[in-house]
């Protein structure tokens, strides 16, 4: 019997090459290619007066220098607004190379191509760009005040006013027994994958085709963008995402200027060109995320049940809006989380600032929404003197309320209807896992050691696996090898393993026979991309459907050969056999051979399928009408709408009241992503997400000064956690399958990061008794807070004590 694969911690097939140094990342490809480097704007907002390249032309090794003037046709037009939206009324995007005005430090102005990167940087050093500085807008409050405009023709700095409501919130607030209002901030962080971006382009002059390797989360769409911008026919462009060293969202944005400019240069120069983004470039020219100001008014009854919620927020989208308003939409629609909110209104202005663009970073607006809602729950509890877990419990959507319609429109344009869930179950498990009921005891124990202990929790619901579709191709070769491909890309999630598990399970073949390719447009041309925790849901189900198609065909062919009924056949360990009749069987690889009627034999296996190999049925054509040669199948999965995963986190912090250092001593996660393909991989995703959540809560921020200079554009000063900063995490699972897709999956990629800021803020507030209204928070800020006599004191509410 085939080994059970679904739901098992199968070890990753990606790992061998990655632990032996045989992975192939973009910068590993194309030895000897010419190297690109960029002159980038040193100013946050300035008009380009002139570019002088004279001194650069005689550097030995310079090959080409490009400015905006060298761009032609669609390349001279602004970069695409990838996701248009009716409420995005003033979309703005930059040019591949700045035309006249630069809008943030780091914007590309000149591209240099030289024999190697060292020389290319020498050339950049000798290029002089003269600028006239313009007034700079930094931060949501400055953008909102609009004393200056980022874009001359958008005087209020508002790119979009996103607005959704489910009823008359003002009436509902007026009718509420109690209301409270507060304002809070969340700052910027960034995906910061260990591998920066990278592009390698080769132009084949002989057949006028272009091959591009790029460190992307969306190779099919990069391909389409390159074809459109460089005016190439789509079939002449191949885009491959090789091994990608992490993405977390920043690589879903496309086309990055470099993804167009490097191929452009490769074509123009007739030689391979390569660009590897360095860390400083990544800080100042790749996307950031998170910054919002949130003004929240909530109405509730005397038992703490929410009756109305009104959220007014300002979202900093940076200098441009290439990725539309996905982040504010996600904040708006995921904010309500696992709670039944009878009347909800959200208005988010997405505003321009002279900073790097803001596009999804793991969580993609959800951490901000979770921060708004969960801190609201804490405040209601504090106001009523209730346990914070109890207030949450009273507001949860109940298991019998699914599907639950929030009457909101999600980022995919589809309704926010929760497919399934058990939120009370999550809360019960979390309370047990973290020892919520022992909080007061622990607080006393910590106090005896001179530490202030606090505990916090946060719950979330995450819309995962949005459409429109993904596809899968499964093909059985005459060798018995099973080739699987899907168009979406991988950045370390273990797709090769998870998808192989699915195919081996569906097809009844040894997993060792399955080979998975992702993100290679040569293998699969239709795809959307890897984002929004969608790979397992979308490609997983598409591949399962494709494997089922192959299985059906295999059984049909085998039934003919074995003279058996299809329903009596099974496939196990790569052998099609008649159930209960040992010996009546045919290897799947032979079925694959027979599926392709041949005239020519080129090996022993092929011989079996040639026209004189055996008795044929002369009454039928070799390939039946409507059938196709080969044992392969392509299928697609296109969901009616997103599925909704959920979870609950709790953090216990200890604060040293002499140095105000904050130590996360316990971190507990309860996680529900529906059916699980590989629990080892899911837990890995949770671990990684939590580390990013802790980083976002306590360490990471993009520190822009008033001139729009990023002051901490290095790993010395942008404090991504080392192992020493990440707490141990305990995890409990709940599996509530999605009724929406064949495998019952919900996404797992982003969940770990979502509640980090909210639950750590709650824990710190609980420890120090002062209102935490801005995150992240560092010891120096906590010190300022606790010694500020005007800082709001938080009413003490007992934790873990039933009302």
């Amino acid at each position: 019997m085939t080994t059970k694969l679904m739901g098992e911690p199968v070890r990753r097939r990606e790992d061998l090459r990655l632990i032996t140094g045989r992975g192939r990342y973009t910068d590993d490809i194309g030895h000897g290619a010419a190297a690109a480097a960029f002159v980038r704007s040193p100013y946050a907002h300035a008009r380009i007066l002139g570019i002088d390249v004279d001194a650069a032309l005689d550097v030995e090794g310079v090959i080409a220098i490009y400015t905006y003037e060298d761009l032609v046709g669609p390349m001279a037009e602004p970069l695409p607004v990838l996701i248009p939206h009716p409420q995005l009324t003033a979309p703005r995007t930059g040019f591949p190379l700045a035309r006249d005005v630069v809008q943030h430090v780091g914007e590309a102005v000149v591209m240099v191509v030289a024999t190697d990167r060292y020389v290319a940087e020498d050339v950049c050093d000798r290029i002089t760009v003269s600028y006239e500085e313009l007034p700079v807008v930094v931060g949501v409050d400055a953008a909102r005040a609009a004393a200056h405009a980022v874009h001359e023709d958008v005087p209020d700095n508002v790119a979009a006013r996103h607005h959704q409501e489910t009823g008359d919130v003002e009436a509902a607030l007026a009718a509420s027994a109690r209301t409270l209002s507060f304002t809070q901030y969340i700052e910027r962080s960034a995906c910061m994958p260990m591998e920066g971006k990278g592009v390698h382009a080769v132009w084949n002059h002989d057949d006028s085709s272009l091959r591009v390797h790029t460190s992307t989360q969306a190779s099919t769409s990069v391909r389409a963008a390159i074809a459109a911008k460089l005016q190439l026919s789509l079939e002449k462009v191949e885009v491959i995402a090789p091994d990608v060293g992490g993405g977390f969202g920043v690589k879903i944005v496309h086309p990055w200027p470099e993804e167009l400019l490097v191929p452009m240069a490769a074509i123009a120069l007739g030689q391979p060109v390569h660009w590897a983004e360095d860390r400083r470039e990544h800080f100042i020219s790749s996307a950031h995320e998170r910054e919002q100001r949130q003004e929240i008014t909530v109405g509730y009854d005397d038992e703490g049940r929410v009756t109305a919620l009104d959220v007014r927020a300002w979202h900093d989208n940076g200098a441009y809006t290439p990725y539309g308003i996905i982040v504010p939409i996600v904040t708006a629609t995921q904010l309500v989380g696992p709670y039944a909110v009878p009347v909800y209104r959200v208005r988010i202005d997405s505003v321009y600032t002279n900073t790097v663009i803001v596009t999804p970073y793991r969580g993609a607006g959800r951490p901000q929404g979770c921060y708004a809602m969960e801190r609201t729950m804490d405040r209601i509890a504090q106001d009523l003197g209730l346990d914070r877990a109890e207030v949450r419990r009273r507001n949860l959507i109940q298991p019998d309320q699914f599907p639950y319609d929030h009457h909101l429109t999600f980022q995919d344009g589809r309704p926010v209807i929760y497919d399934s869930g058990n939120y009370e179950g999550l809360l019960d498990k979390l309370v047990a896992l973290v020892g919520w009921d022992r909080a007061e005891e622990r607080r006393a124990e910590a106090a005896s050691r001179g530490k202030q202990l606090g505990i916090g929790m946060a719950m979330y619901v995450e819309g995962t696996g949005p459409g429109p579709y993904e596809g899968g191709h499964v093909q059985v070769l005459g060798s018995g090898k099973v080739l699987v491909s899907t168009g979406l890309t991988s950045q370390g999630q273990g797709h090769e393993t998870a998808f192989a598990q699915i195919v081996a399970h569906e097809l009844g073949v040894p997993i060792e026979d399955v080979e998975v390719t992702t993100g290679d447009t040569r293998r699969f041309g239709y795809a959307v991309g890897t984002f929004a925790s969608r790979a397992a849901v979308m490609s997983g189900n598409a591949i399962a459907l494709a494997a089922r198609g192959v299985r059906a065909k295999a059984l049909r062919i085998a039934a003919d050969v074995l003279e058996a009924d299809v329903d009596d056949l099974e496939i196990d360990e790569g052998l099609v056999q008649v159930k209960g009749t040992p010996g009546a069987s045919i290897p799947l690889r032979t079925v694959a051979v027979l599926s392709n009627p041949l005239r020519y034999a080129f090996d022993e296996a092929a011989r079996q399928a040639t026209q004189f190999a055996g008795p044929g049925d002369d009454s039928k054509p070799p390939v039946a009408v409507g059938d196709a040669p080969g044992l392969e199948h392509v299928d697609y999965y296109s969901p009616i709408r997103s599925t909704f995963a959920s979870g609950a986190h709790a953090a216990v912090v200890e604060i040293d009241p002499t140095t105000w250092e904050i130590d996360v001593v316990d971190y507990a996660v309860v996680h529900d992503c529906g059916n699980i393909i590989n629990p080892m991989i899911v837990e890995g995703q949770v671990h990684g997400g939590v580390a990013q959540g802790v980083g976002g809560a306590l360490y990471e921020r993009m520190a822009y000064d008033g001139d729009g200079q990023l002051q901490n554009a290095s790993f010395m000063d942008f404090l991504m956690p080392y192992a020493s900063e990440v707490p141990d995490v305990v995890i409990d699972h709940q599996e509530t399958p999605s009724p929406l897709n064949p495998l019952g999956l919900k996404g797992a990629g982003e969940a770990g990061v979502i509640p980090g800021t909210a639950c750590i803020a709650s824990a710190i507030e609980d420890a120090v008794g002062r209102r935490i209204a801005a995150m992240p928070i560092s010891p120096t800020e906590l010190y300022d807070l606790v010694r500020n006599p005007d800082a709001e004191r938080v009413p003490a509410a007992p934790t873990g004590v039933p009302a």
Partner: protein
Amino acid sequence: MKPAPFGYADPTSLDEALTLLTEDGAKVLAGGQSLLPLLSMRLASPATLVDINRIPGLDSVVVTPSGDGAGVRVGALVRHVELLHHAEAAQVQPLLARATSNVAHPAIRNRGTTVGSIAHADPSGEMTSVLALTGGSVTVATPAGSSAVGWADFFVGPLETSVHGPAVVTEAFFPALPPRTGTAFEEVSRRKGDYAVCGAGVTVTLDEDSRVTSARASYISVGLVPEVHDLTDAVVGQSVDSADWTAAGALARTLVDPDGDLHASADYRRLLVGVLTERTLARAAQEAQNR
């Protein structure tokens, strides 16, 4: 992030190195752990790097336990890791290993040199403060000969020393710890291994009745150059078990003039100066009893 072009020489004698350093824009390369990032970011672009790693005789730790010249002499090519594990040196001057354990992470300590970090004169470096606190000096070789320069004359400003022109700092000398003296060293950093937000190294000396006769401190990431603060007044004559270390911390707070930056306000640094002073003095005093 690639270095601008430079010439490279790896002389095998100090004389050759000094000759090479007479050229304009020549700079010494030892461990390179501070210099290489500056080169790659093109914040420094020397014309010539004079790599001293092949010069013999600069790689030893010489420990003189007592008598004239008692202390630890650390050659220019001694890596942090050697001092960290040097038992004999730790015996004579315990601050060396204690401070070194706070220097970055192991891979950096394997390559970076103690003398290099002193010559780099970064006020957030541990060893600059240790040199000051121990009353140490460096030996500076120039074409005119070698001479010892006391720490107070050596550090001029952030990343700036009194040494100009062709010179190699060949050695740092950390005097031995006096009898009945204990030390302690502690840092607060945002992440383990980062430059300290604030660090404190202290020495406490007791008399035969275990009463404090001296309490001194030097801080990391506080002020533009290393300084030594005498805190004795706050605790002088007090018994080790009942000394008012809090008062010493409070005194320290009044003596320092820290700056604020991305990771800490000046006030927060001042707070930490007090806290770390109090903690480290108490530990150092306990240790002093046993020496």
